[in-house]
């Protein structure tokens, strides 16, 4: 390689002088020591091009993901106001967290929200997908677009819209509730109903995304399985239960994991629609992190909470990954 003679690192030299040698040429010029100096071995070329291609993505990952994550973990062991002096306090932030009843409330609220989305939103997305996959349905693409529309709408706009929809006296949601003869609900002002209100809104906003993934999964199921089931005399429920569901399980698994991670990070809805209230009923982990970090000057403490959120997510994902062996069926 003769790197020692040149002031350039070898990859810069490569960038300027090398002319894509193929293996044949390389064999011919092995004896030519002048040329050899400027060339790279085949292995190094592979190495170089491979890393060159993933370099932009890696750069982004290291600079904007890994580095902030690691420094966040470091900061979680400090008492720090966001700027100014930092003081190393060991695990005091973590101890404080477990004695902070507001944080514990925030954790429960987040779990409540996530369970709500997983148990109502995901099955709903599946039902919609199955429905919109039926060939007999006219205007399927139109409905698919309609259900996907909220996904690409801005969360701020959607939150404002739902603030009106959930209004106690003039809201459309209460209008329908009263139509079926139930008493109106004080959605965003009643601690018992604020979180269900946010779940309702988030399902409306996010179900379209999961629906599209389910649709892709449904279209990946070979028709032959249904034909075989038909021959065996299966009805629609048997086909759904024993063909569709098992063959859709990889998509379901993906959706459950991503929806869970996404739901644990709920922030904007709580920030815009309820400001964490009433009486903390919609204060979620990330909302509490935001308050601590940017309004109360407890950046170190907020980092510790974020690290705990990371740990919760890793654990939950790990458990799911272990459980999948029991129910996810790969074709």
């Amino acid at each position, binding site marked *: 390689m003769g790197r020692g003679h040149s002031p350039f690192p070898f990859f810069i030299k490569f960038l300027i002088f090398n002319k894509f040698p193929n293996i044949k040429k390389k064999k011919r010029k092995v004896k030519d020591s002048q040329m050899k100096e400027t060339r790279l071995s085949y292995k190094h070329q592979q190495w170089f091009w491979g890393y060159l291609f993933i370099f932009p993505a890696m750069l982004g990952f290291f600079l904007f993901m890994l580095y902030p994550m690691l420094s966040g973990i470091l900061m979680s062991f400090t008492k720090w106001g966001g*700027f100014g002096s930092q003081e190393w306090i060991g695990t005091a932030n973590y101890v404080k967290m477990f004695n902070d009843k507001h944080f514990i409330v925030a954790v429960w609220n987040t779990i409540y929200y996530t369970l709500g989305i997983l148990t109502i939103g995901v099955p709903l997305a599946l039902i919609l997908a199955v429905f919109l996959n039926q060939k007999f349905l006219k205007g399927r693409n139109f409905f698919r677009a309609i259900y996907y529309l909220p996904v690409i709408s801005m969360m701020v706009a959607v939150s404002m819209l739902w603030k009106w929809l959930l209004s106690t006296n003039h809201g459309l949601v209460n209008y329908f509730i009263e139509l079926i003869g139930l008493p109106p609900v004080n959605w965003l002002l009643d601690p018992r109903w604020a979180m269900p209100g946010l779940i309702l809104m988030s399902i409306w906003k996010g179900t379209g995304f999961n629906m599209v993934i389910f649709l892709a999964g449904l279209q990946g199921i070979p028709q032959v399985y249904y034909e075989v089931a038909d021959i065996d005399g299966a009805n629609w429920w048997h086909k759904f239960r024993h063909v569709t569901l098992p063959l859709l399980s990889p998509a379901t698994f993906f959706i459950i994991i991503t929806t869970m991670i996404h739901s644990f990070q709920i922030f904007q809805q709580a920030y815009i629609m309820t400001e964490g*209230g009433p009486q903390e009923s919609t204060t979620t982990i990330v909302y509490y992190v935001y308050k601590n970090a940017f309004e*109360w000057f407890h950046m170190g403490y907020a980092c510790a909470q974020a690290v705990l959120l990371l740990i919760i997510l890793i654990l939950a994902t790990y458990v799911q990954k272990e459980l999948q062996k029991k129910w996810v069926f790969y074709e």
Partner: protein
Amino acid sequence: MKRKFLVFVLLIIVAIFLMNAGSVYAEKVSLMMWGGAIEEKEMKGYLAAFNEEYPDIEVEIIRPADYWPKLMSMMAAGTPPDVFYMGFPEFVSYHEKGAILNLQSYINADSNFYESDFFPGLLGAFKDRDTKEIFGIPKDWSTYVMYYNKEMFKKAGLPTPNEMFGCGQWSWQDFLDTAKKLTKDGVHGVALDAGRWKVFPPQGGANWVQGINKVVVDTPEFAEAIQFNADLWLKHNVAPDMTEQADQGPSDRFAHEKAAMYICGRWKAMSYKDLDFEWDIAPLPYNKGMYTWVDLVAYCVAKDSKNPDDAYKLASFLTGKKGQEIMAAAGHAIPIRRSIAYSSEFADVLPERGIHNTVHLMPYYETMLVFNHWGEVWTAINRALEPVWMGEEKAEDALQKAQKEIYRLMAE
């Protein structure tokens, strides 16, 4: 051939960099502000006047969507804006962390500063507690006042709040009686946001901020003031309750003639300027004492500013006589210099409407309440008061809970 091309590309890159550097201004200062597009447009007007005096200094306006997180992250990154808005409560934390430049030496060298021209209590909010050195120059302030619909008062045959205040009959009871008389046909006597309870406790005689680490809310006076506020809708039905407030904000209620009175700060006056009914402002009512809440904002210079001299020039121009005169004419807030605030420039901002603009200067503003853990303490009190506003809990009980939380915060 290839090398020529490479050289050519390099030359273009260098040229682009040079173009960037070739600005007409010799110096550059960044100014970070909050507010909407209207405020930014006004700021550009002030800066045009600034550039007449200092043509060499280019001012770059930064107006982020999320002011405080942005300021904090710029500080943390070591690249703060040179000049930035600073509220009086936030000043305590930012000053404590050493993020703000001491302006005293600049002020001492500035023959146009005239410290005595400032409202003293307001300038004092940006002084160091011990050394009394100035760390920020207040730019403007707002007091809370009573907006009232003149036509509704006339129709009901009632004396206006200004007249009642003038003859010493504007106590809480007078205010409540007036509101009762004005509440009819779907119109409320008064509209107010639950979050604006802060105007009441000192009126009721509660001395609730007794020191930077001493906040006392579990007193009978404080509870009485809070209950007075809540009972306006819970008991007397003269104000919209919480669900009604959520449906239509108190400010809109006043603008749409659904409320005869409205308690809010000075800034509303400009958006109410074009309402098609006659309105005016009056002092807030009083009980055991007179009081109104003051919002106060200053220009501060970052300690890490690369260009502190020019930054000071900008801050002192905007708070100087000329800058304040232009600001007074725009009318968004009350000038910080007494010579301007008491001048006709300010009093005549809304001449066509006959607004008593000088009501803003009622002489009971000088109590700037500040304490540590500002944001958390407010959150604790507001959280405790939520059931009170809904009528589910008595103010007294809720405030005891809040007090416990405050003790815990202050002990940290």
